[in-house]
């Protein structure tokens, strides 16, 4: 009898060690963070007072916050949009490739699996107004390039291009995996019916890839929304706050101004944004898990 009880608890005992580490360091902080957002909480000088929703009112009345939201949404929208369109095109191109297939894919993956902090350093050099290769190339054509990351007018553009480049391998390879798994029959039928390649692409390939396209868009949106490394190393949120996304603002509010309450409040907001988006994905995944 005792041994049967033990057998029943085996599956839980096997999960327990993993949960023992995931819970305190991953799940508990989320709830603790919500709690902290109801306090006016500063590290220097130390203060900790319950202020109800005051932090939220302060944040919503802060133009810097709204500017940061605008930058975040702009950055995320453009990055994900361009990554998707370019990525789909490139995946389509790579799909028919026969020569050095695996090598090409491994090379394409490099920007994505290299440390973003290191990747940003290369780009910091490329974008440099004087020494950078981008302006050197422009100079070759007789164009005087702008200040890129050093100029508030072009800094967000530079950061956006860098992030598109860094993240696109994921989009390409996921879509490519989807393309490779497509059945042949609809294509054979379409060819017999004399469909053009544009028709085939939009009327057969895209609908068949629907699920994978969803996955890619949701993942990229969630990951781009939280982007930190690239922006921090390239511009630190500057110049003049022109690249200060919510992630950068959370970090700076905490570790530059030591204002824990406001930082937690911003964290709750980015969390809610992420949850709304991942909810869609998880509803799909939860259904898949039935199988």
């Amino acid at each position: 009898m005792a041994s049967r009880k033990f057998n029943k608890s085996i599956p839980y005992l096997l999960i327990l060690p993993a949960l023992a580490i995931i819970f305190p360091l991953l799940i508990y902080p989320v709830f603790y963070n919500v709690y902290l957002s109801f306090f006016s909480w500063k590290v220097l000088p130390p203060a900790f007072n319950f202020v109800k929703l005051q932090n939220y009112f302060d944040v919503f009345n802060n133009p810097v916050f709204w500017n940061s939201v605008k930058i975040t949404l702009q950055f995320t929208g453009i990055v994900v949009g361009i990554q998707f369109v370019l990525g789909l095109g490139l995946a389509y191109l790579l799909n028919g490739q026969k020569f050095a297939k695996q090598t090409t894919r491994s090379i394409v993956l490099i920007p994505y699996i290299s440390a973003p902090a290191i990747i940003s350093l290369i780009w910091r050099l490329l974008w440099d107004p004087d020494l950078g290769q981008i302006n050197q190339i422009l100079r070759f054509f007789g164009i005087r390039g702008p200040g890129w990351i050093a100029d508030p007018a072009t800094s967000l553009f530079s950061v956006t291009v860098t992030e598109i480049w860094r993240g696109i391998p994921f989009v390409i390879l996921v879509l490519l995996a989807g393309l490779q798994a497509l059945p042949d029959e609809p294509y054979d039928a379409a060819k017999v019916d004399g469909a053009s390649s544009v028709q085939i692409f939009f009327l057969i390939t895209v609908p068949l890839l629907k699920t994978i396209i969803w996955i890619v868009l949701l993942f990229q949106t969630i990951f781009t929304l939280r982007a930190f490394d690239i922006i921090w190393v390239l511009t630190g949120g500057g110049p003049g706050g022109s690249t200060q996304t919510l992630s950068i603002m959370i970090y700076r509010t905490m570790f530059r101004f030591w204002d824990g309450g406001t930082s937690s409040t911003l964290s709750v907001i980015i969390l809610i944004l992420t949850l709304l988006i991942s909810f869609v994905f998880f509803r799909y995944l939860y259904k898949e898990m039935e199988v």
Partner: protein
Amino acid sequence: MSRKTEGIIIILVVLFIAPVIQMVLMSFKQPLDLFSTFLFFKPTGANYVDLFSRLNLTYFFKNSIIIASGTAVLSVILGAVAAYSFARYNFPMRKFLLFMVLFSRMLPPVAGVVPLFLVMRRLGFTDTYGGIILLYTAFQTPFVIWMMRGFFLSIPRELEEAAVIDGCSRLTAFLRITLPLSRPGLAATSIFAFTLSWNEFLFALIFTGTNTKTIPVAVPELIGEMGIFWGQICAAGTLAVLPIFIFSFLAQKQLISGLTFGAVKG
């Protein structure tokens, strides 16, 4: 596919990867050649020598290796054990717990910096190998669980059951049959966990200090008041990317599958 398309692909790939090629080339250039030449220069190893003699990067590489391997070993052990339970047992809370594990990994790390700062400080984890390894493990284990669950599911359950009928205990059946068969999965998952920790920046920036600082935090600091050591930065960057580059050749399919929680087979 025509020759022409293959040619276009090669050109595009080379253009695409040009920034990385540029980094590797610059790592072998002397200060004078850095910005004046592109392909044709007399290569030098001075930047690499500098890294270890003058800038003391050995220390940061050591930290990165300790932390990334520690995380890989710990998260793969904890994660694989949990994954086995999710793959082989049927218990009431199974689906809910699996869902929670996955869900926790979708949370944006940056939203955890304030509470984690307090938690890590209270536990005395700041600037210790153990602390940062435990933190990384908490973040990698959900990935490991998801990847390893897939691998275990792909090994027929009947193999184990046959062994049990032949008189093996469940544990022996696991150790003799399932474990050896899942070796490629364990290798790929370890590589994956290692890569994520090796590259991690945000938590390293906050929770590592003089004792534990890792490469992604140390290298950008070479941009200092004394000017920017581009040659050395490129050398350090090349060394930092090299192991990951090798891994991507070894486990490219699993990387894609792991990054999408197995939603895409790669």
